[in-house]
């Protein structure tokens, strides 16, 4: 049996990196969150102000609106990605001409940097030069102007996210589907189960862990989205796409309100963890069995 010392020594570099770049900055953010600190204020020094920053955000309409919009964005984007990703994974389970080509093309968005995705979608959606408004106008006579219509802007951020991240969901679910044993499906077919019954009672329960892992990852990504949306809409029109990640960026960097920005960051982290925990409890955690009467 190897000694614990060797194990700790092997873990040390990782722990050092994690501590330096993960734990210490987090502790610093918590520390800053309890201070009033704007380096461009009349008093640029950090001043301890207790929990005032946290109290402030409870009444901050801009923050609460940003949280609400972010949740809407996350639910629509992630929900659509899971449904679309599942169907695409099912499609890729079958053989059809050009399958390899489709799989490659379908995966390409994953390797594009978010800032580039935002730029490309901005070009595609700008009135007068964008391909999307052009065809919408030519085919349906719809005059799309994302800068003037909050609903369209919101929808475009969702569609952009779906375009970018559905391939990840597809690949994850494809791996899960490929790993399923054949026996339960064959037995269900012999017993006369139809496709819907097979999906609800066999496929879905068996790939549920993969779906949940994907939902967790995508949900966390969606809640902290910044760069794509920043490039596409800048958070506008108005505050229609000022999602919470972008809101934090605006508070911390241009506004340099470090104390309040840190408090918002901590609360958003807490909300994200809570959401994931609720999802886990609702869908995965083992339930106590009902006792027989």
């Amino acid at each position, binding site marked *: 049996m190897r000694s614990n010392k060797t194990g700790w020594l092997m873990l040390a570099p990782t722990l050092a990196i994690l501590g330096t770049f993960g734990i210490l900055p987090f502790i610093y953010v918590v520390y800053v969150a309890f201070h009033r600190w704007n*380096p461009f204020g009349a008093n640029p020094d950090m001043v301890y102000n207790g929990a005032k920053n946290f109290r402030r955000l409870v009444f901050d309409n801009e923050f609460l609106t940003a949280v609400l919009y972010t949740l809407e964005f996350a639910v629509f984007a992630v929900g659509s990605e899971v449904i679309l990703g599942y169907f695409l994974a099912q499609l890729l389970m079958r053989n059809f001409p050009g399958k390899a080509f489709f799989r490659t093309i379908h995966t390409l968005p994953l390797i594009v940097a978010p800032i580039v995705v935002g730029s490309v979608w901005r070009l595609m959606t700008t009135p007068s030069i964008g391909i999307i408004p052009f065809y919408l106008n030519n085919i349906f006579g719809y005059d799309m102007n994302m800068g003037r219509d909050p609903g369209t802007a919101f929808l475009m951020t969702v569609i952009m996210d779906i375009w970018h991240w559905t391939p990840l969901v597809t690949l994850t679910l494809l791996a899960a589907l490929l790993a399923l044993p054949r026996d339960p499906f064959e037995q269900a077919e012999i017993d006369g189960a139809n496709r819907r019954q097979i999906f609800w009672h066999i496929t879905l329960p068996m790939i549920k862990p993969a779906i949940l892992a994907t939902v967790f990852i995508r949900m966390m990504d969606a809640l902290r989205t910044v760069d794509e949306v920043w490039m596409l809409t800048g958070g506008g029109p*108005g505050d229609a796409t000022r999602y919470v990640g972008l809101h934090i960026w605006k508070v911390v*960097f241009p506004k340099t*309100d470090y104390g309040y920005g840190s408090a918002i960051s901590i609360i958003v982290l807490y909300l994200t963890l809570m959401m994931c925990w609720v999802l886990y409890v609702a869908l995965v955690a083992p339930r106590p069995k009902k006792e027989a009467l």
Partner: protein
Amino acid sequence: MFMKSKITAIAAVLMTTAFPAFADFWSDAGAKYKGVVLHGVTESSPPSVYIKDVLAPQFEAATGIKVEIETTSWDQMYDKAIKDMEAGTGLYDMVYIEQDIIYAYLSRNFLVDMTQTLTDKPELKAPTYDDANFTTFANYFKNADGHLFGVPMEAFIKLYLYRKDLFENPDIMAAYKAKTGKDLMPATTHEDYTAIAEFFTEYGKEKGMELWGTTAQAHTGHAASWYEYYESIAPTFGVYNWGIDPANNYAASVANGGRMNSDEAKAAMKYWLHLRDIAPPESAQSTWTETATTFAAGRAAQGLIYGENAAWIASDATKSKVVGQVGFALPPLADGVMAAAEAGTGYIGYYDGGAFGLPVTSKNQEAALLFLQFIGQNEVQPDWAVAAPRITNTATYDDPKVVAMDATLGGYYTMLKDQGKLFAGAPAYPFHAQVREATAPIFYQILTGEIGPDEGLDAMAAKAEEELTNLGYRQ
């Protein structure tokens, strides 16, 4: 562009050979720092790109000191520079200082006092560099003692550009006269500007042309729209310095002595919103450069355009469809604004620009100081002014290349020289981004129509005062 840069770099090397006196100073001064690599961060604008592509290689050839300039977006540039100076990492040896941020930087002691350093270390002073060579725009980068904290590297005014081919077309002139009873000429009042804008938007529609009456920098989620209103529109209605009065406890609301929600500010907002409504559809997503692109594409008959884009719009046929068809004029004004500008109590538009400064956190301050003097010399200015429409040194105006370029640009440089004094930079506030970001969400709501302009400006004035109180400026 690349070829041109190379040729200029080679010319610089030849120049240093031909003028041994200059070459001696730069090579002697640079010898001590051979092997040093200077890092700078700046906004990706034509003058900055010229520094990166032309002046940095020239400097390296003359001194042996390598210079790496990072050109990035406006937001990223500030983000990186402020983080570096705040954290004291010393990553950058030069940072771009836009005129409106200098007061914030000075309040935090981020920058090296160049005048003092050159006085203390005369061996670093280049014989061809002198603070006195700069135009009065350099005053924005000086402290109360007259000490310079940045070498001006771009300066331009936001002008009224119009399409000469349209304004001088006899058929269009007759149609305009028939419709309005007035002669078609560059507007001097807001009413005339609006009438011309409405006329051309309607004209474009009737003729099935991709033509609108005006540009509008009216992005509904980007600070560019906020700046267009406060720096270029509100002042033409007599609302200066964002309507905040520093002498009156930083009041913003009329109730407290400010003018952010004054009748003039509200009239300015309604005027601009109407123009936005008859501008090309991309205007709601236009930031700093997109208005220039719209104008260059021949999609607008007139507009307010930053001078840094004037040269390429007027002269670069590879980028612009309106080469040779661009006229320049002063922005339209409300009564009394010109008189106030001439008296020095007001201004008619935005005098924009920036400087290259030396952070106190730089680890290569002496080598960086050499570079900053290099780009501040009179000798490098004419080619720079031709490549990018900026003039920071008084002597540049009289250089034959610049005089020829001025003729090509229809007198833009002459206007900058003679009437630049009527324009003003941003107010001397150390809280630019803070007040802007606090009020911007309401401003964007005005643009989207979620809130009316009167109600919105009242809310913005209240928000500005609240933020100034939080920051400790308003008591």
